[in-house]
């Protein structure tokens, strides 16, 4: 479900990005409280939420009469694993270098 290209396509829209940002900051919210992100209409918000749900970025939960929206942790993990900093590359590679060297020394 969590396909990276659909995730990014969904987040490529400024309003949808702002919705996701707000949900990450404030946690689960009803659609009504998301309207403040772009001063947009209720139908527009629900269209954006539909795109985000289809892309697997956001999930919906029904609580009595309210529909509550939140960001799926899997989507964020996928985003996190998609970018790799120089620091991360070297730190993790050097950890492995250290292990490989220790193994080598045990052979000697």
């Amino acid at each position: 479900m969590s396909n990276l290209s659909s995730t990014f396509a969904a987040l490529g829209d400024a309003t949808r990005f702002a919705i996701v940002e707000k949900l990450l900051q404030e946690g689960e919210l009803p659609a009504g409280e998301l309207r403040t992100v772009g001063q947009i209409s209720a139908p527009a918000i629900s269209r954006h939420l539909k795109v985000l749900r289809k892309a697997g970025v956001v999930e919906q939960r029904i609580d009595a009469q309210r529909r509550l929206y939140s960001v799926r942790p899997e989507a964020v993990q996928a985003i996190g694993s998609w970018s790799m900093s120089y620091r991360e590359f070297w730190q993790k590679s050097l950890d492995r270098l250290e292990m490989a060297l220790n193994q080598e020394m045990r052979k000697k």
Partner: protein
Amino acid sequence: MSTLKMERTFSADPATVFSFLTQPQNILKWWGPEGMTVPEHDLDFSKPGKWMSVMVNAEGGRYKVTGEVIKVDPPRSVELTWGWHDENDARGHESHVRLEVEPSGTGGAVFRLTHSDLPDDESAANHEQGWTSALKKLERLLN
């Protein structure tokens, strides 16, 4: 531009460390974070010339990086260039890597990494540069 520096002390002797840093069959024992595979590679840092690697993570994300070994001074140092490629295989910003080894005084080796000329956002192997700051923002919110 910014510079990333790391230092580690290994119990292995300098010659062994240098061989692990430069010999193709040894580089593959540590190149890339745990859990990544390196399906394509030309990693020989023992002599000047071009190098490349493609790393793939568990989610199928592909990271290609290429460069050139500029200078080798065995068993002390290696200098190379570094550039991530984007999803259209266009090579991005070029940075410089220096790997240094010296005796630790107790039989081991002190290893120093200097990765310089990095873009200031300390950025990442992203397939599209424009995403870097947006992603950083999202990741910060998560932590």
